[in-house]
């Protein structure tokens, strides 16, 4: 499958490790030791079978067990991703609802066009802008995200806030747009008109009738953003030098560290698939029409 794609990477792993001046004999010896001299199917089978037993092998570059590298990196990335989601989800939903309530107004244009532009600007451009303003200009935050070992949660937050903000900018537009579209749709729906005509106060109409119907699908959409988030993590972790799964993958790709690269890609693929699955399930659970339709 996809992992074969990683195997196509050109260049000799052994050659890469020993450098261009090593003689061919020692390159061959190391190739044998690493098992990279065997045929691709043989290597692939080896990898799959050991993967099933939970043994991910060890890094071809620094000999650390892959599972150790991957687990550490995933925990680190998880922290960063969680922080970004905690900030972006309420912000984008509130933004989208405000835009929808003032559809066509200047505020709506600002949130819609501004949000989508923020989404379109690459993560590293946001990183440069935020670092210049908040880290170097105002001196509020550090320029890297890698907090010292054993740092308290507040120190960690201080280090992670800027990278998380970059991810927030990239994720904001799409979630806000979905929240806006959902809210507009339910504002125009018959049940909302009925509620208004019943004489319910506007606040109640919005909360009980509009939001309940518009936000549930939006929450499911959030899960589908996992792909953008992961893509963003690679770049953000590289620029902030943060030891997460993105940086691990990036390093592995540049150093031809296949064991690490394959495991990282596999893990990302699984996370991505699970997130999409959760999105589908959430959508049907949260939307009574789909849920009941399936039950019939």
């Amino acid at each position, binding site marked *: *499958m996809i992992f074969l794609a990683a195997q196509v990477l050109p260049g000799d792993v052994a050659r890469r490790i020993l450098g261009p001046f090593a003689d061919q004999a020692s390159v061959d010896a190391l190739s044998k030791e690493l098992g990279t001299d065997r045929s691709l199917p043989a290597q692939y089978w080896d990898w799959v079978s050991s993967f099933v037993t939970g043994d991910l092998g060890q890094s071809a570059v620094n000999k650390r067990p892959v599972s150790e590298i991957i687990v550490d990196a995933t925990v680190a990335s998880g922290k960063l991703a969680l922080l970004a989601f905690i900030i972006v989800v309420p912000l984008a939903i509130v933004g989208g609802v405000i835009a929808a309530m003032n559809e066509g107004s200047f505020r709506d244009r600002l949130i819609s066009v501004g949000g989508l532009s923020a989404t379109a600007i*690459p993560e590293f*451009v946001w990183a440069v802008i935020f670092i210049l303003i908040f880290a170097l200009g105002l001196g509020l935050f550090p320029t890297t995200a890698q907090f010292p070992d054993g740092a308290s949660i507040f120190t960690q937050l201080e280090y992670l806030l800027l990278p998380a903000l970059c991810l927030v900018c990239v994720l904001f537009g799409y979630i806000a747009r979905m929240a806006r579209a959902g809210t507009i749709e339910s504002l125009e729906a018959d049940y909302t008109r009925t509620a208004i005509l019943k004489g319910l106060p506007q606040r109640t109409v919005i909360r009980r009738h509009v939001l309940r119907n518009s936000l549930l699908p939006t929450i499911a959409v959030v899960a589908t953003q996992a792909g953008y988030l992961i*893509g963003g993590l690679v770049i953000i972790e590289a620029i902030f030098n943060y030891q997460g799964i993105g940086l691990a*993958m990036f390093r592995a790709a540049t150093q031809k560290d296949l064991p690490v690269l394959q495991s990282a890609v596999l893990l990302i693929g699984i996370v991505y698939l699970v997130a999409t699955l959760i999105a589908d399930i959430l959508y049907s659970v949260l939307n009574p029409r789909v849920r009941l339709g399936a039950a019939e």
Partner: protein
Amino acid sequence: MSVPGQSAPAGATEIGTASPAAVGARGDDSRVATKERLALLKRSRTFIAGAIIVGFWVLCAIFGELVVPKDPLASDPINDLLSPGADNWFGTDKLGRDVFSRVIVGARDILIVAPLATILATVLGTALGLVTGYFRGAVDDVLSRIIEAFLALPVIIMGLLVAVALGPSKTTLILTIGVLFAPIISRTVRAAVLTERELEYVSAARLRNERTPYILFGEILPNVMGPIIVEFTVRLGYAIFTAAGLSFLGFGIPAPAPDWGLQVSEQYGLISGGFWWPVLFPSLAIATLVIGVNLIADGVASAFER
């Protein structure tokens, strides 16, 4: 990417007037509609603003080399990291290259890569979408599974893997982005074709015993041009985003090209030392270009999707 007016079949306009509800939000594709859309575009302020920004960068890409004050590739180690001033408007980078010249000329690489990749993706995606949407059944199932396999990983990760495998170059970048974006476009086209194929003009063409390729490209294609054009402008923005990201990671356009993403990644290490100018100006260039393309996409979407 204009609508091929001469190939718009007579059937299309008839359908447009006969069952406007069925054709739905996209409207028909007669010449009148195209004119109306262009008029709408000309009145759209977001479109105009976007066109001015993107137009500026296109001019830079074409004529930049002729007008810039310095050679963007000439290094001058004695005058490295000069702060912005009268002689070097945006300062010089760590190799003493003029940042202003590099930013202006740097428009060229991204404005070659992103549009070519998007055109490739649109052509592939449209063909794929037409075929999957029109045939449905087994053909659709098989092709859709293959498409889903392509989408099983985030685009930037796939792009990174391919770029590493094939070695970074402009061609690799164009092919990678083009192929990776095609499935996304094909989904939009497929959805449009699914409603279109049920309309009378398609069955009429089938009854006339037209060949399938003609029905696909001569009859249906002109009628799904609206969503395709919208999709093209939207994807162009994403292509710039992805190309810049891959360049930044070092898997895009190879050095010493004055590509913006590459400039940022080359000079980024200096930022904590206070040397902000070699990093900030290319960053701002990318930001303005994507905002411009996005404004255009926004204007096109509201003109074509009503």
